[in-house]
């Protein structure tokens, strides 16, 4: 074999700790190496050209690049070599950066190690075989999980590009949190006015299949070929018959028992309900936990009044299977609820603010409902306890955010903006009212954002106090807020009528479960992880699954919408080809030595191992062996490690390749 070795300085990253020229000259002496050189940036255009030139001039069969992690540039170098005529799987990378220069200080030792690392790969590549990528068809359909503004945007983009979308939404209606808002910053547009046209567009779109009041239960397969099981929860209403006339909701006698989630607990809703008047789809749901029929067998008023016989008490959950090629996760966020938690949990609660104890201490979404024209007070600024107009209102920012001790250490990004908005909404409705905002910093980094906050202070007369509140208690119907202004260095105590807490944006309760179902990585807060924080913000660790909106990190509406369109674009890239090339690093069974014990099948996480009958010429079955479905195999190597007879090998990482690496290193000792 004629092997070429290329050592990259990676600027200073490797060059500062590893003496690259020495490494290159040492490698030139390895048996089998006919070319060795070093260069500042191997991945750059001139760098790649050096490799291509050497391949042509020196007639190289294989290439070893000593540079960064394969995660970074394996694709780059494989493509460069492939362009020059070498099978891309005869290209190996020695990680001289993450595994060497970035973790050591001493130059001579690091250089020695670098030489060892390259030598190991030179020995390995001698055993490499050319491999052909596996081609799989692409299902040109997308699944979007979550029907909030991000999910809606992504669905519309993909559907408008000509592909089918299955949009799954957990709640009875799409719209998400944006449908609960009164007005949006920085324009103070009416939230539902800008959202509902989109919702209707989704509903009426010929290529969007809206599956509401449903959840994703299982996902199998891989990029381009996912098989998804969706649980369509029982509404107790046949949606193909219901016209949304609303008579059943009107007549339902159980009106005051259940708290409305949409109104954040500030109002009740009937047992048979539609979350809000503009719901899409406008089909009601029976809450079986409070419905009289389901508890005692009596009533059935809704069934009696329905002119279409659409009520079906016997309805069960349905499991639907959908095949898709790409999945976009747009499940959004929830607000941190401050309640008592046991010591072991991360959250210790904010007992000092009295949320849950004092009726007039509310959170951001509850204030939105109060301010909203469709809310429990029809948009009038009235406080929950006695429905009077608060003359003094206090807003507290950073409740649960930026809190190492009792909450989450991150900043929730949107609170400074929506608090300013809330204060402005209040002042617009209560002209003689006083609004106070307790803040630590103002984070208003978007377009027209800072000006928006200044407007609240300069034009609407909202008083901003730089400091935090230590305690809130109730005295004679007023909420005494004890705070401090650190700029003036004085104590500030306000006898407020109402307090609004800007609580942290956190991951949904079941986000971890969904992440595990999708095999997507997530962080300690339950937010889904992007593939690379700078350059791959909408992709995940799993190919074919993309992220949009607040399920990834706290985010406002403009950024969520942008991200949704970006995720849609990624899906469309996938749909742009009929066939997807998969890495051929898959397992392969040696049928001659396989004993048919199927331990490999038991440990395969991807259900990629099947049984195959070996027959003689007469058609009699001689033995049953294991067979790897290369379409499903992810190349994890677990079967290879498990097989007692060493009959399963991983192409690209076969035993002789690995042992060559180990032996070359062992020789040093």
């Amino acid at each position: 074999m004629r092997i070429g070795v290329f050592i990259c300085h990676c600027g200073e990253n490797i060059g500062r700790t590893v003496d690259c020229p020495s490494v290159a000259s040492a490698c030139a002496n390895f048996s089998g190496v006919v070319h060795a050189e070093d260069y500042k940036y191997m991945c750059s255009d001139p760098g790649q050209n050096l490799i291509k030139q050497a391949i042509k001039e020196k007639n190289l069969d294989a290439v070893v690049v000593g540079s960064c992690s394969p995660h970074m540039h394996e694709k780059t170098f494989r493509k460069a070599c492939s362009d020059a005529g070498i099978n891309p799987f005869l290209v190996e990378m020695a990680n001289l950066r993450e595994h060497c220069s970035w973790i050591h200080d001493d130059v001579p030792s690091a250089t020695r190690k670098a030489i060892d690392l390259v030598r190991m790969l030179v020995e390995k590549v001698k055993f490499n075989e050319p491999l052909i990528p596996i081609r799989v068809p692409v299902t040109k359909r997308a699944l979007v999980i979550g029907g909030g503004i991000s999910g809606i945007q992504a669905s519309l983009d993909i559907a408008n590009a000509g592909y089918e979308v299955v949009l799954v939404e957990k709640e009875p209606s799409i719209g998400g949190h944006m449908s609960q808002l009164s007005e949006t910053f920085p324009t103070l547009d009416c939230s539902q006015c800008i959202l509902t046209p989109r919702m209707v567009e989704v509903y009426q779109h010929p290529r969007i299949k809206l599956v509401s009041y449903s959840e994703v239960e299982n996902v199998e397969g891989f990029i381009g070929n996912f098989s998804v099981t969706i649980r369509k929860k029982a509404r107790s209403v046949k949606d193909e018959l219901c016209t949304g006339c609303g008579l059943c909701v009107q007549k339902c006698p159980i009106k005051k028992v259940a708290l409305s989630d949409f109104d954040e607990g500030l109002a009740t809703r009937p047992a048979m309900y539609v979350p809000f008047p503009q719901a899409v789809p406008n089909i009601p749901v029976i809450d079986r936990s409070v419905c009289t029929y389901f508890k005692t067998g009596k009533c059935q008023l809704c069934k009696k009044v329905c002119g279409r016989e659409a009520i079906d008490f016997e309805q069960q959950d349905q499991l639907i299977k959908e095949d898709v090629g790409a999945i976009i996760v747009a499940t959004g966020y929830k607000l941190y609820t401050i309640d008592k938690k046991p010591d072991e949990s991360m959250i210790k609660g904010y007992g000092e603010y009295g949320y849950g104890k004092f009726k007039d201490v509310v959170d951001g979404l509850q204030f939105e409902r109060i301010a909203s024209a469709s809310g429990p007070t029809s948009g009038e600024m009235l406080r929950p306890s006695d429905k009077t107009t608060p003359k003094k209102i206090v807003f507290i920012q950073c409740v649960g955010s930026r809190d190492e001790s009792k909450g989450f250490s991150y900043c929730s990004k949107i609170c400074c903006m929506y608090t300013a908005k809330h204060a402005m909404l209040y002042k617009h409705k209560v002209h003689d009212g006083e609004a106070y905002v307790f803040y630590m910093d103002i984070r208003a980094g978007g377009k027209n954002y800072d000006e928006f906050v200044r407007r609240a202070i300069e034009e609407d007369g909202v008083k901003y106090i730089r400091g935090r509140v230590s305690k809130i208690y109730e005295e004679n119907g007023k909420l005494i807020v004890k705070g401090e202004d650190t700029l003036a260095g004085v104590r500030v105590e306000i006898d407020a009528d109402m307090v609004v807490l800007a609580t942290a944006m956190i991951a949904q309760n079941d986000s971890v479960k969904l992440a595990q179902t999708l095999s997507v990585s997530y962080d300690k807060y339950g937010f889904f992880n992007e593939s690379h924080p700078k350059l791959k913000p909408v992709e995940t660790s799993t190919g074919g699954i993309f992220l949009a909106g607040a399920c990834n990190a706290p985010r406002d509406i403009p950024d969520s919408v942008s991200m949704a369109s970006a995720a849609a674009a990624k899906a469309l890239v996938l749909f742009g080809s009929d066939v997807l090339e998969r890495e051929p690093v898959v397992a392969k069974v040696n049928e001659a030595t396989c004993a048919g014990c199927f331990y490999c099948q038991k440990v395969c996480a991807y259900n990629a191992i099947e049984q195959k009958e070996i027959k003689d010429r007469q058609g009699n079955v001689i033995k049953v062996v294991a067979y790897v479905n290369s379409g499903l195999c992810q190349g994890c190597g677990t079967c290879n490690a498990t097989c007692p007879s060493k009959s399963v090998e991983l192409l690209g990482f076969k035993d002789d390749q690995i042992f060559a690496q180990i032996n070359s290193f062992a020789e040093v000792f």
Partner: protein
Amino acid sequence: MKFGYYPGCSLSGTAKEFDLSLKEVLKYLDTDLLEINDWCCCGASSAHSASHLLSVALPARNLILAKEQGMKEIVAPCAACFNRLKVAQHELQNDEHIRINTEELLDTKYSDGINVLNLISLFQQIGLEKIKSNAKVDFSKLNVACYYGCLLVRPHDILKFDDPENPTTMEEVVKATGAKPVDWNFKVECCGAAHSIAHTEIVENLSMKILDDAINYKANVIVVACPMCHSNLDMRQKNIIKHNPGRNKIPILYLSQLIGLSLGLDHKKLGLDLHFIDTAPLIASLSENEVAV
């Protein structure tokens, strides 16, 4: 049941009624207290104001004595002593540096193993049903403001006792006597603590706010578990009334005294005549099943 006993300096002096009432009640409930032999002051506020090491060493000495004397659980009825003992224990367990320095200073080795209880956890251990089933007086018209003060519940990470913002364990004990705890705001607000002597005006101010809130929420009595709090709310209440004439008086009882009254024990034996704010009207009304304000 048997417990090691760390009375602390106050219970032997100005808070005598706390000690008396506790012993009376425990005698009735068949519980023995074995005082730690030759215990010394826990250091209170003055030790930690002067030297961090001293603030750990003094309680450490007592913990070591308790262990030497074969005790497994000790009760420190005074909230400040309880707090100092627990904090010292925590530091000795978690800070190698402090442990070594303390052992050097005391010239003894320290090892863990003592469980330190406060007044409320003591009664929880004994069992609230015992209090409930032995209640002899009808307390149903008695509104009680449970005052925890600072040192029973903070710092929560170390003490791990109840909720530092809205505790309820004392209320449970009070409910067992049949009385009604009120839901008021100043359960855990500071009374001014050790500033009683050097800055009496601070204590008067802070204590007045506490008294006001309790009265506002219609409490007939404030129940405490700390001699410092008691002194600030009881002894200093006289000054507060002097400086603000026309105020209503509100008696301040130790939790052990309240329990003792509920069990029908003699009020003199419970030290109820040793208070500055007269408890006689309260006792009289209880014995007639009416409540005075």
